[in-house]
């Protein structure tokens, strides 16, 4: 009886989570195996693994998988992660006003609404945009980035928008390294890079794995940024899985098929989450 009354305050949260989060996930797992369409069909029917078979034979799907991989590796694992770590490491030594200024600018890019960030980088990468103006000024060849290399443009956009997160995670981690350790290494004559490689990186390795996991999950679900910049185009050249899923489900009305793709995305996300939980194991 006491247990029940004590668990009572959990009810509103649990009801909301079951109805609006667990419910859709279960429903997702169901319609992924049906041929549900947006219009003109009385009853959906169960078609087993047909959607998944279609997907793995569908070139547009395989293209989206490949682009999602490129987007995640280039923008999250390489871009945000390395730049975030570099910024955090530089901030340890820089003078205070410059540290504050840079931190402020990088965080502002992160706090901006997704759609606004999309517009700003659209303007930056357009043929008439700032990037080409700078390239012209340097007498370097300019081009229409959103047309020739759209996946690279949206990847850089994601670096611009997401680096602050890694920077904050690494700043917190570096601040926790005791001063004596770095000073001792300095006295022993270890140079900057060697100290970084042999002392700093091993000491923050838990933060590194946590950060990699979280930014991968965030990057997997980016939709608005790419939608505003390129709509996944031209010709699917920047169509990552979330945009592919949206197009199949709504523009081609194949809800069943789109949901099958969503389910794959969820499964990949769940695998990453489980790894993340194992990393945090000691914390909970």
């Amino acid at each position, binding site marked *: 009886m006491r247990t029940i009354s004590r668990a009572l305050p959990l009810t509103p949260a649990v009801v909301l989570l079951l109805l609006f989060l667990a419910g859709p996930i279960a429903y997702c797992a169901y319609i992924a195996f049906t041929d549900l369409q947006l219009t003109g069909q009385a009853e959906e029917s169960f078609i087993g693994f047909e959607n998944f078979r279609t997907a793995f034979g569908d070139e547009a799907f395989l293209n989206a998988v490949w682009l999602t991989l490129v987007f995640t590796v280039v923008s999250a694992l390489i871009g945000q992660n390395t730049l975030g770590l570099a910024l955090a490491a530089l901030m340890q030594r820089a003078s205070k006003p*410059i540290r504050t200024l840079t931190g402020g*600018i990088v965080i502002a890019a992160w706090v901006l609404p997704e759609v606004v960030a999309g517009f700003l980088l659209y303007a930056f990468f357009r043929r008439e945009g700032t990037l080409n103006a700078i390239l012209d000024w340097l007498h370097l060849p300019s081009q229409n980035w959103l047309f020739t290399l759209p996946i690279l443009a949206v990847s850089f956009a994601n670096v611009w928008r997401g680096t602050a997160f890694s920077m904050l995670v690494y700043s917190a981690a570096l601040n926790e390294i005791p001063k004596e350790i770095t000073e001792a290494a300095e006295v022993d004559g270890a140079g900057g890079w060697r100290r970084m490689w042999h002392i700093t990186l091993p000491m923050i390795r838990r933060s590194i794995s946590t950060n990699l996991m979280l930014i991968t999950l965030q990057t997997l679900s980016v939709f608005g940024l790419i939608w505003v910049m390129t709509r996944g185009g031209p010709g699917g050249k920047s169509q990552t899985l979330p945009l592919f899923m949206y197009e199949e489900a709504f523009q081609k009305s194949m809800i069943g098929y789109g949901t099958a793709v969503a389910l794959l995305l969820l499964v990949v996300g769940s695998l990453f989450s489980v790894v993340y939980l194992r990393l945090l194991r000691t914390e909970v």
Partner: protein
Amino acid sequence: MRSRSTTRRLAADTGLLAVAAAFVLPLAWVVLSALDPRADLRVKVPGGVTWDNFDAVLTEEITFTPLLNSLLLCGGGTLLTVACAALAAYPLSRFRSRLNRPFLLTILFATCLPITAVMVPVYALFVQVNLIDTMQGTIFFFAASQLPFAIWLMKNFMDGVPKELEEAAWTDGASSFQSLLRIVLPLMGPGVAVVTVFSFVMMWGNFFVPFMLLLTPDQMPAAVSINEFFGNRGTVVYGQLAAFSVIYSTPVILLYVVVARRLGGGFALGGAVKG
């Protein structure tokens, strides 16, 4: 020895300034273009400063209705999230139970799920139960998607409030609910502020959820309407687009600054990402 550390500081300063210069360009574009009577897609110093762009977008159709919708959606969603999270965090933080650990693990697991992926089934489900194109449906979904992280943050903050303070209240006959409301929550004011601001900022900037769940133009929040007004029209007036972006972004930037000032930078990560 001293000159070496000065050189190192200068090198670090130069590196940071280079990154800052690259990052500031898009931000400079939006601010300068908003004030520029002849804005285009390049960063340039305006020929003259004008408020015409702001005047042009400050109409009911373009600015006030979408911002009011955003406020209703995100305000409602945030209230629901914070209330449910505070209630849920209390037993998790205060009472020992075999179920706490599995519950918290499930919550953390849900925090990581890519919400984008559930939107297609959520849409299909909302059509079936007639919640599609309703404010309340969108608010409920916003709250549910933000709840896992909010519960996790709230529980960590609540753990920091010593239990002894409540025990005095219990002996005076106060119920758990009273002690939560009168003692625990006031003592963790900054924590509640962080959860509130974080939830609000996340909802304010979210595009995909209202884009999928709302259909009527009158109900659209700024995140979606900005796209409809400027993205789908043939000729884009870049100065007005920039002005609207500034108006729409200001609230979340201000909220972030206020909370970060009071609690130190990186506040949102404090309870969440312990690596």
